[in-house]
């Protein structure tokens, strides 16, 4: 039978990442002052703003490197840091928390590769020990990912034998190896020599094109303009302004955004 009524409009797909009222203070310093944010599946969101504005802290609240003082983080329907028991959310820790966090990838400003492991071991370790792949499966996945970031020939190198750009590409491969639901980038090019920035941004752009959901804290305005679906201007622990890259970067409405963009240009 044909429906008599118009079908109800399909509800928007649920955002893959939702933050509600996230707050974080360090002593008297209010780094993040109550942030609400939704990120859709496959969306690339760039967060820009002055240093010390709390944007890195916000990112670190998502995977509970810095557990928020208040507020909730939901990733793909899972409330991070909680588990429902008898209908009520209860805090979790240890193995259960680690299991939740494993689905949130993160790339750090200082790369943070495991110093005692080769590039291949860095990428294969998570899939092997956390996702439970066999040694062979984990190695194959790591080799594929190293090839994808253009470092197939560096599989046996230790981090200290690699340039900053190469280390960061390994770090991206390590994050991708966990098949993350969302991938966080915390100023991924800020610690790099200028001539090495390009190779990392190229890899990030490729990752974005393949549909990975990305939340990127960055100072690379040209990257934000080219790759981001949305740009957020963050200052003093707040989302000050958000919209398409053209909206925020080319015709900012807020005076603080304008002042910041004038500085970095």
């Amino acid at each position, binding site marked *: 039978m044909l429906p008599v009524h118009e079908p109800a409009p399909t509800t928007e797909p649920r955002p893959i990442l939702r933050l509600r009222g996230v707050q974080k203070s360090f002593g008297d310093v209010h780094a993040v002052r109550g942030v609400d944010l939704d990120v859709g599946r496959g969306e690339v969101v760039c967060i820009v703003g002055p240093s010390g504005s709390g944007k890195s802290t916000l990112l670190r609240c998502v995977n509970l490197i810095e557990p928020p003082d208040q507020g909730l983080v939901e990733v793909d329907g899972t409330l991070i840091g909680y588990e429902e028991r008898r209908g009520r959310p209860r805090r979790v820790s240890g193995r259960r928390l*680690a299991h939740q966090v494993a689905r949130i990838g*993160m790339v750090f400003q200082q790369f943070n590769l*495991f*110093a*005692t492991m080769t590039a291949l071991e860095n990428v294969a*370790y998570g899939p092997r020990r956390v996702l439970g792949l066999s040694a062979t499966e984990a190695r194959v996945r790591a080799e594929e990912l190293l090839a994808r970031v253009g470092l197939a020939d560096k599989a046996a190198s230790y981090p200290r034998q690699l340039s900053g750009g190469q280390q960061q590409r390994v770090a991206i491969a*390590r994050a991708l190896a966990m098949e993350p639901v969302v991938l966080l980038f915390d100023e991924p090019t800020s610690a790099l020599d200028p001539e090495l920035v390009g190779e990392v941004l190229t890899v990030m752009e490729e990752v974005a094109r393949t549909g990975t959901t990305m939340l990127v804290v960055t100072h690379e305005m040209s990257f934000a303009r080219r790759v981001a679906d949305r740009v957020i201007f963050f200052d003093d622990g707040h989302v000050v302004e958000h919209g398409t890259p053209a909206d925020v970067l080319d015709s900012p409405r807020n005076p603080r955004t304008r002042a910041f963009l004038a500085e970095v240009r």
Partner: protein
Amino acid sequence: MTEQQVRDGAPLTRPVTDDSALGRALAAPSLERTHGRSLLLGRAFSVVAVAAAVGLVVVLARNPAMDWPTFAEYLFDERVAAGLRMTLGLTVTVTVASFVLGTVVAAMRLSRMRGVSAIAWAYVSVFRTIPLLVQLLLWFNIGYLFPSIGLTLPFTDLSWSVQTNNLISATTAAFIGLTLHETAYAAEVIRGGILSVERGQHEAAHAIGLTRTRTLFAIVLPSAMRSIIPAGMGLLIGTLKHTAVVSYLAVSDLLYAVQLIYNANYRVIPLLMVAVFWYAVCTTVLSVLQHLLERHFISRYTRGR
């Protein structure tokens, strides 16, 4: 022409002609020689120092009381060998036990749980306070405090007990005392190593979903080895020498073995030299081992040496 040229030919520097400190220093013909003279003085001092050391050794070696024939006679004596085995056995077992326990204490000390951390802190404080010899004597005489140790199953007649003096022999007391003592120091060495590892390593491990325990053992401790190995080997060499105090409890270690011999024949110095010789051999072997360990495990993945 000493001035460097930039691309367009303009000099990067101008000749120094003024009467500044730089000008005077550049003009001084003695600049090289003053450095040379201090180097020469240093060399002269080294030569004198080495000569004095060699002289001292020669004087000692030629002293008739050294009695080298007796030294040679007892160097491979079966009683000395047995003592050396006891010394080495104690050193190895105490080191293994104290590093295992030390890792536990260090992990407890770094725990986020206040109570756990406080217990570890108290342990380290107490066992670094009591002199090793005093502690050994306490363990050896524990029988005065607890004459017998027993277990009784509640609500039954089953019970088991043993005289403490039978349970804790001199060797056991030595092992317990040394281990508890060295554990306190090993815990600090390991804790220092863990703290030397960058925070980023913990964060990266957290981000791929490792628990804190796995992070400690799989990521942090291997990385901490670069500072644990040098300090830990120092501790191991220290343990080797600390075992000499067990001769106070009449445990037949290397020192006790030579004491027994010289108490009988009064050739004190050559027999002490026998002990010195074997302690030196063991220490040297350990130093070489440290060098190999550092080369094998560390230089591969750390900056610098």
